[in-house]
């Protein structure tokens, strides 16, 4: 029950944000789509300029993103078809409050983290090769009457790093296993990659950046000798049946929010769409699971799926905060000085062709170039994905970073959620980022704090 003290402290309501007219231009991380909210719902709001009609579609997409999918056959036929194999029952279960997921503690089952699988090699389109029994993603849950694919315990292996000024930072990395396989052993040479659920907000704006803009940021041969060699991933588009730039996901393996969503519905929840009309059961699983009832063909109609896609395109970026703070301003200078901005690009423009006109012609501050960069051995998963090598990762957008604690009540960074603080995340940067990381380590404590304050203002 609520105590008197907690109530008097005003814990119930977030502080009201000042009206948009009171804010400097730099605060508008998403251009005119930016929303001003620094509370629990900061990642869950529609584009500030979303039309009334689109808001109604957003409400529908929101419903199907947030509500649980249930076992077929159920009365609410639009909502049934969960599984038979799945990772979570809803998008929101992992993309918590439209933010990122959390990794499990030891002894806990994974929810906000999943395991990608593959065998060495590529298919005809350049995609990773699936394991014949387990495919390209491990399903750790199943509907009653079905066995999940495996149980996977996690262990966190600690280490420390000491900075030149003597400060010691605790680090950790995950290890998985021993794995209990329920459909027989996987093929030899199986590759794994743990993947934290990505934040959803801002996706539409990223989708609206022209390909030419991203290409102009690439420098695969490092012709300017700055140590940075960003590459655009080129991936297979199932919907368009051609190869095109990838920009979503930890290895930029998804070309569009539509395809990413369809893949996630199938792989994470076991929901079919017209893009993926069949359940992803392998031949080994068909005997046990192939005859279980499903939620229709497809389980998610085009009509509703389109609204979920619009929802993922229309989640707004929250405004920057604390711009007046001198520490933030110092940190912003340092960010450029030590070259973080070489990959975490501060400013980009969206183009004029995105189907959602609210996303067009915006000046945005995502702090990403959406390109692949070699991040070194320590962070590698050794699982290539189209053009992305086993040591490359897509530059993660940094907008909204400072609100993770408020929205999700926790902070986990990098592809497997190993970093619990931004300092930890920075310390894992290597490869192309080694020079910047070393420069960070050599900053004074005050300067490091300023850089962190700047990141927290995003």
């Amino acid at each position, binding site marked *: *029950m609520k105590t*008197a003290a907690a109530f008097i402290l005003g814990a119930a*309501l977030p502080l009201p944000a000042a009206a948009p007219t009171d804010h400097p231009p730099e605060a508008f991380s998403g251009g005119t789509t930016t929303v001003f909210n620094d509370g629990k719902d900061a990642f869950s709001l529609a584009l500030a300029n979303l039309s009334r009609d689109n808001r*109604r579609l957003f409400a*529908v997409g929101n419903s199907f993103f947030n509500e649980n999918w*249930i076992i077929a056959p*159920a009365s*609410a036929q639009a909502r049934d078809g*969960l599984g038979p194999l799945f990772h979570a029952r809803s998008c929101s*279960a992992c993309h918590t409050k439209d933010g990122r997921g959390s990794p499990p503690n030891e002894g806990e089952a994974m929810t906000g983290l999943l395991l990608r699988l593959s065998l060495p090699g590529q298919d005809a389109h350049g995609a990773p090769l699936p394991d014949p029994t387990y495919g390209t993603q491990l399903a750790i849950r199943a509907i009653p009457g079905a066995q999940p694919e495996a149980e996977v315990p996690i262990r966190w292996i600690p280490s420390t790093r000491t900075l030149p000024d003597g400060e010691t930072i605790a680090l950790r990395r995950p290890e998985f296993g021993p794995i209990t396989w329920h459909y027989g052993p996987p093929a030899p040479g199986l590759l794994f990659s743990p993947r934290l659920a990505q934040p959803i907000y801002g996706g539409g704006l990223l989708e609206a950046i022209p390909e030419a803009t991203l290409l102009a940021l690439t420098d695969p041969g490092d012709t300017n000798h700055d140590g940075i060699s960003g590459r655009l991933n080129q991936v297979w588009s199932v919907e368009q049946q051609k190869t095109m730039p990838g920009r979503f996901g930890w290895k930029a393996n998804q070309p569009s929010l539509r395809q990413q969503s369809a893949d996630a519905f199938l792989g994470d929840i076991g929901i079919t769409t017209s893009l993926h009309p069949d359940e992803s059961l392998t031949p080994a699983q068909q005997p046990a699971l192939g005859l279980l009832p499903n939620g229709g063909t497809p389980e998610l109609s085009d009509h509703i799926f389109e609204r979920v896609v619009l929802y993922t395109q229309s989640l707004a970026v929250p405004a920057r905060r604390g711009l007046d703070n001198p520490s933030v301003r110092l940190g912003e200078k340092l960010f450029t000085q030590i070259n973080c901005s070489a990959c975490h690009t501060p400013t980009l423009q969206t183009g004029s062709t995105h189907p959602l006109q609210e996303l067009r012609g915006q000046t945005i501050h995502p702090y990403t170039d959406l390109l692949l960069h070699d991040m070194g051995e320590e962070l590698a998963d050794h699982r290539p994905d189209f053009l992305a090598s086993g040591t490359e990762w897509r530059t993660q957008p940094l907008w909204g970073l400072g609100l993770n604690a408020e929205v999700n009540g926790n902070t986990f960074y990098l592809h497997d959620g190993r970093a619990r603080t931004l300092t930890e995340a920075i310390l894992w940067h290597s490869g192309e980022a080694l020079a910047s990381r070393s420069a960070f380590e050599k900053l004074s404590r005050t300067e490091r704090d300023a850089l962190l304050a700047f990141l927290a203002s995003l």
Partner: protein
Amino acid sequence: MKRILTCVLASWALGTGPAPAARTPLQTTSRAVVLQYAKTVHAVYSDCLTASLTLQQSIRSFLAAPSPDSLAAARAAWKSARLIYVQSEVFRYYAGPVDDADGPEPLLNSWPLDELYIDAGEGGDGGIIANEKTYPDITPRLIESLNLKEGEKNISCGWHAVEFLLWGQDKSATGPGDRPCTDYTTAPHAARRGQYLQACADLIVSQFEDLTKQWAPGKLGNYRAIFEEGYDQSIERILTGMIFLSGNELAGERLQVAWDTREQEDEPSCFSDHTCEETIGDALGLQNIYRGNYVRPDGTSLTGPGLRDLALLVKPDLVPGLDSKTDGTLAAARSIPSPFDQAILGDDDSPGRRAVLKTLTAAEDQSALLRTLARALQIQIPEQAASDIAG
């Protein structure tokens, strides 16, 4: 305005502020509205408690002597309780007792219910009810522990669980669920099904007992005491509840989704087909707070200052619009032909679809005007996501 009120409040807390006689008209009216609201909330939750006790008892009677008549009585008791409960939904969205971190809202009202998680259909063996090995004792505590939107668990208790257990799956295009009372006599797992049903009803009673205590008058340190004392913040809470119920939940989640998708069972009360009545109840709840008038099940009225009186004071030009939209949402809701799941079908010209669209449009407009009122009171209502079920 807000800063002034806060300073005054702080100095009252220190015992050094102006006496009540020195309050401005705005302060006086705000305080009166807040006191009336608190009275109303307590009355609504008390009425919910009474109705849920009736439901609990009717379920006991049904399980003691299952028959079509005793099942019908239990179903009627569920419907009566729901009609009061939906009038309390306007008290959500500001992390009050019903939906703060420990609040019962996710346990009371979550949707969609995973039917097969609770009770396998067509004599199957899945579900909690059939699983005697893992769940040997079905108790309110167990059911509460199994209810979680994320992770391993799913929605397992609350209004819609009771509804599901009383009506069964709605497989019909033209009527509600039609569970026979033999599900509680001769069908497999009949006894455990009965225990589950009773446990859900018992849980609802205990939740309304708690809510009623939090809003009871004259109790030192309960939510009501602090709500009434901090009345300028409470106006913000009252408005927050109204704005999000009308604009986000009612217009968006409840009506727009169903209207847009034409999915027959994409309605909160899909087993009983009670959604029309509940839509009316939500709209009525909004009007109750706006006009300061709540008609109780026994026919008596609780009347006093409402938000309308505050609007008349600070922005009288808003009042005609607010009147029109608040009453209009209710009138439009009353015009939706029952059952809801058929009202949304057909082409856009059909009377049902026109009525649903009219209701959601009025609710959207109501929400927008309430935001304008908030701005006039110098209150900034944050944007908030709908479907905030997990809190």
